[in-house]
């Protein structure tokens, strides 16, 4: 088993939200529910978010009037049945999609009204993604896959190389930089995906079933990496079916039939 290096990511200053007392805050958690320090500033604020899809002649309501605030540095899990709206919510949080109505604020940027180019810039700088299927490019090495996330930032070559090396070392893959995905285990591939997500030094990391394709030991390995990143101040939002993952979060949300509720005990 590869030893996981201690976290050493550079943190960004966080932007605080100002809120009014009238806003619907029913879903806002008031404090940390798990390990680590309690987050102090809100990174996300979702207000009355609805997302509907038109499928043939039917209108499908994926999200209905969701109000939610997620603090910077928080570790939040989203659970729920298939078709409950988890992926839709994650896509709205990840600036991959816009709500049909309502607002999604990320560090002062209204993602609901942002242009495609703005959303692209937000994704390039502020958000890291980790997918269940890893989504690595099979023809590229681990280092090259990680480097792909730096492509839109236009950094000098030397800095990119340094960042890539740091990110891979951070997830314990300093000795696997030249390996292609097919030469890596599932856990190692997911760690490459995490390195790709954090190499840009984002504010938030969104993970969709990051341990869904892994066995138990690899799951724990990945969770340790994610918790380490969260401890450094990275906001972590994880969609999961796995209760073992959810139990380690600061806050647990459940999405069912398009509505969200806090199930943190």
């Amino acid at each position, binding site marked *: 088993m590869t030893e996981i290096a201690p976290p050493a990511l550079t943190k960004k200053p966080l932007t605080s939200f100002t809120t009014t007392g009238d806003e619907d805050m029913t879903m806002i958690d008031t404090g940390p529910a798990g390990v680590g320090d309690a987050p102090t500033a809100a990174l996300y604020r979702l207000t009355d978010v609805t997302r509907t899809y038109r499928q043939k002649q039917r209108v499908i309501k994926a999200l209905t009037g969701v109000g939610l605030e997620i603090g910077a540095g928080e570790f939040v899990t989203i659970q729920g049945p298939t078709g409950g709206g988890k*992926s839709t919510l994650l*896509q709205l949080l*990840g600036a*991959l*999609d816009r709500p049909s109505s309502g607002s999604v604020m990320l560090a002062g940027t209204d993602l609901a009204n942002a242009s*495609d*180019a703005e959303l*692209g*810039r937000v*994704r*390039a*700088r502020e958000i*890291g*993604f980790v*997918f269940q*299927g890893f*989504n690595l*490019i*099979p*023809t*590229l090495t681990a280092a*090259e896959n990680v*480097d*792909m*996330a730096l*492509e*839109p*930032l236009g950094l000098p070559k030397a800095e*990119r190389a340094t960042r890539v090396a740091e990110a891979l070392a951070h997830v314990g893959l300093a000795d696997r930089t030249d390996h292609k995905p097919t030469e890596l285990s599932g856990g190692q591939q997911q760690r490459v995906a995490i390195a*790709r*997500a954090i190499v*840009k030094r984002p504010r938030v990391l969104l993970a969709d079933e990051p341990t869904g394709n892994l066995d138990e030991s690899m799951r724990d390995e990945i969770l340790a990496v994610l918790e380490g990143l969260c401890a450094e101040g990275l906001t972590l939002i994880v969609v999961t079916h796995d209760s073992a993952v959810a139990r380690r979060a600061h806050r647990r949300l459940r999405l069912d039939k398009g509505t969200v509720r806090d199930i943190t005990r």
Partner: protein
Amino acid sequence: MYGTYLRRELVGRKKQTIIVAAGLAIAIALVMIVNSLAAGVRDAQAQALESVYGVGTDLTVTGAMPEPGEGGGQRFDFGEEGGATGEDGTTELSQSQLVSEPMRATLDASTLDTVTAVDGVSAASATLSLTNMTFSGELPAAPDDTTTTEGGTQGTPPQGEGGGGGFGGGSFGVDSFTVLGIDPTSTAVGPLSAVEISDGRALESSDEGGNVAVLDATYAATAEVVVGDTIDIGGEDFEVVGLVASTSDEADTASNVYIPLDVAQTLSGVGAVVSTVYVQAESSDAIAAVQADLEEALPDTTVSSQADLASTVSGSLSSASSLITNLGTWLSVIVLAVALVLAVLFTISGVSRRTREFGTLKAIGWSNGRVVGQVAGESAVQGLLGGVVGLVLGFAGIVAINLISPTISTAAAAETSTQGGPGGAGGGPGDGAFGNAVMQQGSTDIVLQAPVTLWVIVAAVGIAVLGGLVAGAFGGWRAARLSPAEALRSVG
């Protein structure tokens, strides 16, 4: 990173890369070979035309074709003193006539003046096409009884060989060669503009009215005539003052014998007429206008341009031209279209198969432009690979053609009608043998060369770039339409 990603994707998807590049390569190679062959055929046509019409001739003016029934065969009449009878009673006959070519109309000599007066004409020259026919042979002594004579067979002549006769053993031959009357003072345009003097000299202005001749070198070799010899033309002796050869190795000159125009007119008895007026326009832009003006000024004539002349080149060259123009061009177009469609379909299919990849790239912040650039870049490189391979294949094909050097025959229609036929050889000597030694002037074998022109290379590279761009445009358009949310949702 762009280059690394591009290289890895092309190497990682070898099969697609090879199929797309190979398709384009075959198309490019075909286009190169067809273009090159077409250029080769054009050169061959030009070469064939030059040997007949000379260099710099833009237009020709000829008389309209006579109606069927006009003209007809040449008749040889021998009077009582027409031959010399030897001691054994055998009569030797020989008669030479200079006649105008059958089925070829003539123009009044003043046509040249009319042509010269037309605006845009920089030079013009007239010629008179004639055929010299020599009937020669032996007629044995007439039998005084019904016994068989030595060397002959008495009897009824075979059916269809004319009526008459009643004795055999005679031997006759009809020998003919083409004669072109030219203006010695004006050879810059016309048949002699594309020849070189291989021996002796050319006709000069001082030769007007004189019995001097210049011979085609090939014909002279066949007839075993050299400079200084005398030949019989129309019953008169002509001194051979020079030999001319075509500037092309493969082609003969336009005629067997060249004599002064005025002598040709007098000797043939046709009067002040010419067969063809060769016209040079002041510039290539003026050719169409000059042609129109000439047609208006000379309504009873046929005015032909180089394009019209090219269509008179017959033989396998014509077949090759037709084959390349029709089959070759269409084959190239079809293969090119298939290659382009293949490249586009493979690219679109590739984008569809890489939905997760492009969705992920967009999710991590890649802009549409960057993703489209990636797809287009991959297609462009595939196109360029196809272009390079196609260039190599095309060059190899062209080199192979040039090594094989296929020979194709050419025959300019204007020169194929020189065979007059022994029209006057009536009578029916039973075993008479009629020779026919007409030179088939204008029918030559030309080695087809496939030249590599800048245009061929530009076309090949252009097709490669175009193929890549078209495929990249379609693939890029497909990738640009890919919403990251939908892409990630669709691959789950």
